[in-house]
């Protein structure tokens, strides 16, 4: 049957884009994180939605599992073929279909990289931008919205899934459906006022369908931007700083970071406030507003602004920033993984303490921080642990630290983001029974043959 299936896949996408070679199956069996490998039987690279539809029809008919991968950068091993079968690499689907300048949205194929969209907008619509995640530019738009990613405009616009204006999705049986306004109109302007079917595919680990097109909100790209960094030593003061800065509402992006390296940063909590402006006067005005907003804390000498040299500013303002991935080489070993925990902003101190305790206990190289999401209703608090891939004990150590972090995040009231399979199980354990029941019913309804990313969202 497998041979027939593979021939069927070749007929759909062309022989050169189907591989059963061991080399490909090995590479696609894992990502840069700590999760163990699971090899697909076959890797396939479709070029458009119709091909995805045919692949799913074929897989459904043969009851063969299907997994889906963008750039494979979740680091939690979400694309791994736990039950074998077909792995679809989406990156040949990378067209920009439409930019609606006045309504500020773009429609893209899901496999387009963040970098390609950013470059296209800079060149053709320099006054518009989309929210870039801190992931490398290879990360795909479809993958990132599917996992509720966040990025450098998330303070303004919330999670990247909140910025979705519509989706095209291929269901397990091969049907192609649309969510949002594009299901009724030629325009992909909003999810409202219809029943929000997008929610059936965002955060589901591709267990309900494969997103093939995305309508995404765009935002004004200001010609000028600046970053100011507030520092303090007490996490409770950082909570206060976050509250005050978010209350001011001038920022595009607010990020906190705490790391033992470089030495000058050790022991301090930092809060980057990034804002844009149309003119220099506006930029200065915003800078002054920010100063006034935290003046009382400065007067009390519990916080202050970090003096920044131009190269440091550039580093903080670069989107995406290459420095972030360099954390993977801290242990000279090509690896880091992080728990990105969605946590209410008021739990900042608890979240910070949790990270320090675990790093100390497991003696792992760590970096902690958070991105404030959507006017500070929540934050994505990250606990990143570096490891040396060539040292299996070191990998195991990081894996243990991650697992413990995931559990403790749930304990304090947060929820692990893009959760590894062990963390998914922990989330489901804690989840309201009726909610969980509904999730399983919906999965069954949309995927009766259980071919979509089996192993994910399962107890």
């Amino acid at each position: 049957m497998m041979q027939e299936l593979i021939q069927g896949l070749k007929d759909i996408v062309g022989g050169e884009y189907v591989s059963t070679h061991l080399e490909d199956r090995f590479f696609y069996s894992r990502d840069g994180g700590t999760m163990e490998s699971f090899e697909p039987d076959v890797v396939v690279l479709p070029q458009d939605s119709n091909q995805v539809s045919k692949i799913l029809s074929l897989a459904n008919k043969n009851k063969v599992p299907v997994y889906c991968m963008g750039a494979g950068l979740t680091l939690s091993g979400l694309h791994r073929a736990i039950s074998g079968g077909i792995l679809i690499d989406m990156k040949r689907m990378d067209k920009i279909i439409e930019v609606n300048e006045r309504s500020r949205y773009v429609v893209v194929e899901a496999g387009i990289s963040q970098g390609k969209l950013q470059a296209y907008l800079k060149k053709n619509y320099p006054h518009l931008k989309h929210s870039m995640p801190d992931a490398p530019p290879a990360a795909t738009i479809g993958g990132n919205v599917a996992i509720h990613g966040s990025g450098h405009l998330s303070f303004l616009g919330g999670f990247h899934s909140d910025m979705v204006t519509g989706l095209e999705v291929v269901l397990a049986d091969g049907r192609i459906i649309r969510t949002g306004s594009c299901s009724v109109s030629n325009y992909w302007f909003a999810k409202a006022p219809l029943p929000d079917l997008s929610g059936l595919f965002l955060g589901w680990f591709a267990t309900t369908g494969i997103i093939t097109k995305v309508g995404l909100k765009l935002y004004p790209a200001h010609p000028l931007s600046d970053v100011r960094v507030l520092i303090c030593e007490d996490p409770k003061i950082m909570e206060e700083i976050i509250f005050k800065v978010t209350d001011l509402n001038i920022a595009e992006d607010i990020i906190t970071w705490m790391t033992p390296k470089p030495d000058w940063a050790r022991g301090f909590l930092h809060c980057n406030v990034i804002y844009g402006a149309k003119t220099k006067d506006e930029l200065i005005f915003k800078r002054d507003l920010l100063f006034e907003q935290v003046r009382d804390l400065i007067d009390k000498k519990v916080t202050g602004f970090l003096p920044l040299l131009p190269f440091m500013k550039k580093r903080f303002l670069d989107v995406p920033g290459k420095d972030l991935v360099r954390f993977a080489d801290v242990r000279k070993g090509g690896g880091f993984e992080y728990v990105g925990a969605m946590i209410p902003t008021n739990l900042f101190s608890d979240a910070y303490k949790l990270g320090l305790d675990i790093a100390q206990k497991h003696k792992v190289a760590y970096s902690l921080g958070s991105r404030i999401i959507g006017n500070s209703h929540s934050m994505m608090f990250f606990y990143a642990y570096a490891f040396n891939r060539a040292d299996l004990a070191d990998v195991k150590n990081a894996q243990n630290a991650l697992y413990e972090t995931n559990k403790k995040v749930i304990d304090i009231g947060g929820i692990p983001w893009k959760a590894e399979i062990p963390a998914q199980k922990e989330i489901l354990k804690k989840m309201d029974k009726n909610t969980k029941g509904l999730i399983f019913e919906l999965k069954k309804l949309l995927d009766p043959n259980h071919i979509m990313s089996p192993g994910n969202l399962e107890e």
Partner: protein
Amino acid sequence: MKVTDILHRCFRCGYCKFPSNYEDFNCPSYVTYRFETFSPGGRMWVIREWLDGRLETSNRFKEILYSCATCSNCVNHCAFPDFRDMLLDVFRYAKEKLIDEGDVPPPVRDYLTNLYKFKNGFGIPQKKRFEWAEEVEDYDSKKHNYLLYVGDEACFDPVANNMARSTVELFKKINVPFGILTTREISDGLEAYNLGETELFKEIAKRLLEIFKEVEAKKIVTISPHSLYVFKKIYPAFFDMDFEFYHYTHVIRENLSRLTNSKIFKKISYHDPCYLGRYLKDYTTVRDILSFFCKDFLELSRNKKNSLCCGGGGGNFYTALTQKNLENSAKKRIVEALELGVDCLIVSCPICLVMLNDAKKTLGLDDKIEVMDVSEFILKYV
């Protein structure tokens, strides 16, 4: 640090596949195959598995290794400064191991066999090397300032040969005293080096240097940037030598005053070759020449260190592994140039000239855009 010490340090971030602005994939083998294994990072992971004995040598593995066009985009864009300079070294190390095992893809084997037997990769007898150049003088150190080293591609490939003929004609026009090696010229050996056949490379390089010494060459001008690179950067790692090396465009720029400054009203652009650009960091010579003549010089968005390789380096000109599928970087380059609205795409490398002309023909765009080298352009339009 051993080259193999970096293999586990690849984080799969993918920066290696992009240019600086991330506008599209910039790795020729990845553009052709689109499987992650054909990206520089993928290659690192697969080599590690192979060296550790968890993957056996297979045709796929060989294809993954030998489809690397050695364009050096990955070296320029990898996010890890501590080891990015060693990326191509580790790929070459793996290819050396395959050569030691005697297990390389047939087109690689054929190329190396030709090189061994005929001292050129085309498998054509040496006496035919300069049949096209009967009127060009043999190099005489007392008479000629420059020894023109033409190289395999510009001697034997009919399209690339136009570049050699034009260069010769232009040099004569601007009174550059030069001569050639006629039947004594042999391959520069770079592709043997790139394909992992280091011993053959050393043998060829040693012989060529002996020839340079025998004719008392001092200033050697190359047609191909690949030759220029191997002479300037790789030969000295193996041999003591004392020559000056130039690219033919350097000589043209030095003698620009001998040409009429007639403005050409054509929209042109320039495709930076990897070995003159990313390898030797020369981004200005050809631009100086072109801007001397042309009012409408347009830059491709992927230029200089972000140039999209034609896919012909690393022996792929001969093995055609980067041309295996329908999509390839040479075709993308032609489309980019057309979208920019240029009439003429200028190159300064015989391999690029052939690859891009082939792509243009395959796309059925022969009448839409010209692809020619600097000397052809000057002779035709100045």
